[in-house]
């Protein structure tokens, strides 16, 4: 409801009032169906304003990566995109096209699920006398780099009919945007690469794109002379390659081989792994583990050394999965939030107790309890983490 207005200056509040009438609702449904049947996405939904905002706390602002582009589209177009996205997601999930280990940008699949999945794998691996080694990699410029012809192949494989394919053909061509910087506005430029980051259809299109990549990866490692037991977990553009073995040498070679294969598949599909962001982490069983590094020179990357704490999707993993650092980090963050809450209120009096309670429940508790499912379960040692929570309270 509070998002910035697009070029037509119609807000979500206007649309909500408009579509409370059944007649208007029927019209918009008919219009949406007509777009699909006629295989067209109108030009006025393809024009956008891109506002350039500098990212805070950057050392240098000489590279484009130091800026954050915000794309403002027409809200009516966004509404229709949302409707199509919901239908598409239902169809794709129902048909089982997506890989079960794709956890991002799909309903009922959250970061907590990814964390729970990972912690379970590690604990179950320890019971089988295996350590777990993980390579986390990031896809560079994921949203703007999607290749349209590869995306069509993915949509075709997903079993969509010709009308929908035609619609997406029209949807991906003829986009234009103007860039706004402070008071300056540029003329309109054509954009015919990638999918708009602000588009409601983007998450499901990325999921479909990745599904085919993961399928190809699984097929390739299965068809090797000696199949590699590497697991993959993907959360939008952050993916993990997981290996569970008794020997570090074996798991490192499996991970390196899988990483090689994955980088080649991604390159073929028009994407590049950002090697500088690749991370390695071991979850050992032994008290004094060797903690070996992996050399990525063969794929053009650096030698990566495991860190003492690994951050993934907002969770801070440590070797023994006790999440002490994670709790400490979020408890400190909550204290900071609480200190800023004190600043609210006017000059004569502060906030009412009921307002403070509301703020605590909505702004502090969700931060403090983020990912608590990873360390709070039957039989888990929770004393230290609970002490942190109590201190924060």
């Amino acid at each position, binding site marked *: 409801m509070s998002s910035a207005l697009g070029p037509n200056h119609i807000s979500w509040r206007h649309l909500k009032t408009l579509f409370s009438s059944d007649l208007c609702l029927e019209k918009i449904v008919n219009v949406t169906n007509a777009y699909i049947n006629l295989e067209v996405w109108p030009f006025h939904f393809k024009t956008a304003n891109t506002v350039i905002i500098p990212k805070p706390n950057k050392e240098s602002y000489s590279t484009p990566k130091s800026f954050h582009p915000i794309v403002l589209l027409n809200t009516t177009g966004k509404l229709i995109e949302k409707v199509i996205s919901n239908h598409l997601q239902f169809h794709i999930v129902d048909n089982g096209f997506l890989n*079960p280990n794709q956890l991002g940008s799909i309903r009922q699949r959250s970061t907590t699920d990814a964390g*729970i999945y990972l912690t379970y794998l590690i604990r179950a691996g320890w019971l089988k006398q295996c350590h777990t080694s993980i390579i986390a990699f990031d896809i560079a410029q994921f949203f703007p780099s999607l290749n349209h012809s590869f995306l069509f192949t993915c949509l075709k494989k997903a079993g969509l009919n010709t009308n929908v394919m035609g619609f997406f053909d029209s949807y991906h061509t003829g986009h234009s945007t103007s860039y706004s910087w402070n008071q300056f506005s540029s003329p309109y430029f054509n954009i015919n690469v990638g999918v708009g980051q602000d588009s409601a259809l983007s998450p499901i299109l990325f999921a479909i794109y990745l599904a085919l990549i993961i399928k190809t990866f699984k097929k390739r490692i299965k068809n090797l002379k000696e199949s590699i037991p590497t697991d993959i977990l993907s959360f939008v553009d952050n993916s993990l390659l997981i290996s569970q073995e008794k020997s570090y040498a074996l798991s490192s070679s499996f991970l390196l081989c899988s990483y090689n294969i994955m980088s080649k598949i991604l390159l073929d599909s028009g994407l590049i792994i950002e090697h500088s962001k690749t991370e390695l982490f071991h979850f050992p069983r032994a008290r004094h583990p060797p903690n070996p590094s992996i050399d990525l020179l063969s794929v053009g990357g650096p030698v990566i050394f495991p860190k003492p704490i690994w951050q993934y999707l907002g969770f801070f993993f440590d070797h023994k999965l006790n999440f002490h650092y994670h709790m400490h980090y979020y408890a400190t963050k909550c204290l900071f939030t609480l200190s800023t809450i004190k600043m609210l209120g006017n000059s004569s009096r502060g906030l009412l107790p009921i307002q403070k309670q509301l703020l605590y429940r909505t702004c502090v508790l969700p931060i403090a309890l983020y990912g608590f499912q990873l360390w709070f379960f039957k039989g888990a040692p929770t004393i230290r983490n609970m002490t942190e929570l109590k201190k924060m309270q």
Partner: protein
Amino acid sequence: MLHLHKLNGRHHLRYASIPFLHAINSLFDSQHAKNQLPHRVATSKLTAKQQAKLKSLIKDVNERLNSVRQCFNSLHPLFSSGSRVVNHFSSRISFYSPPFSSDEDLYQHLQSLNHAFRDSQVSSNSTAVITDGGVKKSQVATVVAHIWSDNMVIKKLQVNSINITALEAKLMAICTRLIPAMEIENVHNIIVITDSIAAGRKILESKVNPLQNIVISLTSAIKFFFRKDSRNKIHFWYCPSKAE
């Protein structure tokens, strides 16, 4: 601590409704993921000793959801008081079973059944549905159901299934052939001959029971059949499997 327990409990229940093709489902027992291969470290692949040692949220969820069955829907409007079939059409559905288990009573009951069956074959407005279902020692259930009209079998069905109880098999047999029988034109009387009158009574049962999901489609079809014509009736007759 109490708040965390409450939140954790809610989180456990969330996994009862996740889709089959979900990463978390692959870690559960094989019972939870029928369409999917379990992960190589899934709970079902661990030994009993390892399972006892395992401490994880997945284990807690697995233990909690083991007693939850997906095949009941007590909140369906068909089971709400005032809209049940028995509330509106109690005079149009009847059950015939021998009052006592003595041979004489059974003989008399079978005589009446023979008479009713012959009448149904002579009349053009009647049809008979004969059903049987059971579970063998090999845990394979067999469901057999026929529709008879004019002394001829007009529709046949024989299906084998696993992981179902004998009562579910008998109810499935009734469901699969009673619905097509009700769709035949100009049929006002249907005789259902079954070896389990309890399975027939389950259709009208208003209490929460695990067979409700099977019953939903049949109950709505029966409701439609009765509303279509005031002459439409269904009679359930008990017939033991070994009767000759």
